[in-house]
């Protein structure tokens, strides 16, 4: 009897542990399309939400059913929960452990695949430096062009932000791209996103940074590649005009219109 349980459990374990590994492998193969972390995030999020909804509803129905069945009424003045044999007492530990563990590992495997998507930056990226401060987002392009609270990027090119902060913690959060990462003094952190279509996306601060934290907003403007090139030309010219004659430090960033109030 005990032996049978033990053997059964071992078989179950092998099966359940293998499943997530297989699932993770299957996810990794379908690579060639453009990598879009936001789309993959939606996919996994929906999957997990559907799973926990099913588990939750099942649990809730069973519990509600038990409660209703067990209401106190004539003839049912004292509970009669079955006395467990040692084997079933152990079974009630081992089997749930394997069920939970398999769900955990399955979720972990999928989560890890998505994690790699969020952390492996494609090679054809646009590198932007970001310095956050109370209360603005200051972007610097590879060619030295700088903008504040508005980042203009070409559609179809992955963008990576190398981030730091000049004062407190901030978190550059782009809800539309499902991504954020804190920035802080003394370290460089990064995040990347893939703007596929022209459009505008809100940037908002997601780490308490001070009194005006709630107002620390900006936006990402995605332009068609040719429009972006034209915009960049203009920026380069005005940058050259600002730096060339007097050789003053190029602090004259073009302030962008934005919802953020400055204090």
């Amino acid at each position, binding site marked *: 009897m005990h032996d049978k349980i033990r053997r059964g459990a071992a078989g179950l374990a092998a099966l359940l542990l293998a499943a997530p590994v297989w699932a993770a492998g299957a996810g990794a193969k379908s690579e060639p399309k453009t990598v879009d972390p936001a789309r993959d995030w939606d996919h996994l999020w929906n999957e997990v939400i559907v799973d926990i909804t099913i588990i939750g509803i099942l649990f809730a129905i069973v519990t509600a059913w038990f409660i209703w069945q*067990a209401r106190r009424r004539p003839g049912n003045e004292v509970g009669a*929960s079955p006395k467990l044999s040692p084997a079933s007492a152990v079974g009630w530990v081992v089997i749930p452990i394997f069920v939970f563990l398999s769900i955990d590992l399955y*979720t972990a495997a999928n989560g890890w695949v998505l994690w790699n998507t969020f952390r492996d930056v494609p090679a054809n990226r646009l590198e932007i430096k970001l310095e956050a401060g109370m209360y603005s987002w200051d972007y610097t392009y590879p060619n030295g062009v700088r903008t504040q609270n508005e980042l203009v990027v070409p559609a179809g090119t992955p963008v990576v932000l190398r981030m730091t902060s000049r004062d407190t913690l901030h978190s550059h*959060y782009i809800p539309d791209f499902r991504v954020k990462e804190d920035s802080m003094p003394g370290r460089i952190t990064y995040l990347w996103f893939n703007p596929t279509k022209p459009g505008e996306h809100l940037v908002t601060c997601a780490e308490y940074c001070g009194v005006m934290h709630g107002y620390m907003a900006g936006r990402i403007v995605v332009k068609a590649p040719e429009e972006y090139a034209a915009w960049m030309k203009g920026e380069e010219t005005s940058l050259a005009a600002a730096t060339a004659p007097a050789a003053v430090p190029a602090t004259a960033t073009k302030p962008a219109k934005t919802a953020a109030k400055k204090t």
Partner: protein
Amino acid sequence: MNLKEWIFTTDHKRVGVLYLIGSIAAFAVAGIMALLMRAELSTIGPTITANPSQYNVWLYTHGAVMILGFQIPALTGFFANFCIPLMIGAKDVAFPRVNALSVWLFYVGVILALLTFFIPDPPDVMWTGYPPYSTITTGNTAMYSFTVLILGFASIIGGVNFLTTVAYMRAPGLTLNKLNIFVWCTLAAFVLQLIFVPVLGTAVSLISMDKYLGTNFFDPTKGGDVLTYQNLFWFYSHPAVYVIFLPFIGVVYEIISVHARNAVFNYKMVVYGGVGGIVLLAGEVWVHHLYVSGMADWLRIGQMVTTLMISIPVGLMMIGLIGTLYKGSIEFNTPMLYGLGVVFLFLIGGLTGIPLAVPSLTIGVSDTYYVVGHFHYVMAVAGTFAIFGGVYHWFPKMTGKMYNEFWGKLGFWLTFVGVNIVFWIMMDVGVKGMPRRYYDYAHFPQFESAHQWMTVGAGILAIGFALAVLNWIFGAINGKPAGDNPWNSPSLEWSTVSPPPHGNWPSPPSVSEDWHPYGYKKG
């Protein structure tokens, strides 16, 4: 009744009641802060204050006082003090004077926290106190550090006391396998407190040293490191979640077993698998609070696995609860409604935590209202329901009198409906992008009506909680006599008179071979 006798008491039950009064007062204050925040957020732009700092101070007070002044003291102060010696058949705790010291320190801590409203630059560092902001703000960070240190110290000396008490003062015949689940849970919580509170003490001391004494532990321009604080802070504060969870689920076990008149399902599974498993895993999951903080990638992935594994002991504890309901004989009185409420609220809270264990999903929802909604379900609201249910459950023992069932049930239903309105909507706007700790949401105008519903929900639940507290006050003054054992429970605390005298039993109890705290018999 003599006030001096109460203040200088060393009787564990009176110390417990002092803890209860203090923590309910703290709950009321922190609850009013929540209502002020909800009022402020009911419209875009300034509503009841034009000063964002004011909102931040409310939020700081709400978070810090709810956790450090209400839940931890109510659970490890009130319930532990009142119930543990009675449940193990002891006359008192091992060190009654140390116990009195701990409740005094608790009052000092609460008063310090309340001084927030009277000093010119109150702390505005949130209950997490992250540097660099906490070291450069004009708000009073020292106040934050001292409040945390004093309340932490109060709780540590309580821990030493109860571990000793349960080890040495159990009634003859009361073996470890006959301890109430609540006792096991609370001991485990104290073990966690003893290990981890010193780390929190270190963290909050270092920020005040940085701010006032010119050290540079967290200032990278002078060789410090910002992230170190977050690691220290959560190294304690994640286990702190279990310091809250364990006793509150222990309370729920007592409630459900007694009012379903049913033995706890698979006792050893609950104790060794559930409580033991949580103690083992508690210290290995703190990085899930730092998934977007810039931690090393391998740590984020490693602690994703340990965090997900928390579902095992917690799941076993849920199975134990539901198994205890199975084939029970359930009476739907007020304490039981709260107990059953916890089962459903915790189910929602636990399941919505699964995506938050995964770093790649958290990258989207971290620091949004989704997180705030989740942890209110799983800890704030589930814990508060357990506390309220537990106070109702032991109310006849504490006072010898009965509360009013009608007002009790009405209060429960109002709160239950209210919390679901507030925190369900909160999770929904969070997934859609609403960040937490916002005084204003001018760039999210689409959420205004959701915020208004949350404010309505908060009003409803506040009425429910107020009804419960009033019910206790009126019940304590002129409730009907309850008798010594109104629930017909074999657990030892019900075997003495209500309220129990100093020393608890005229002569110390002993228990027989076939006695068990959950051995229900007909009649």
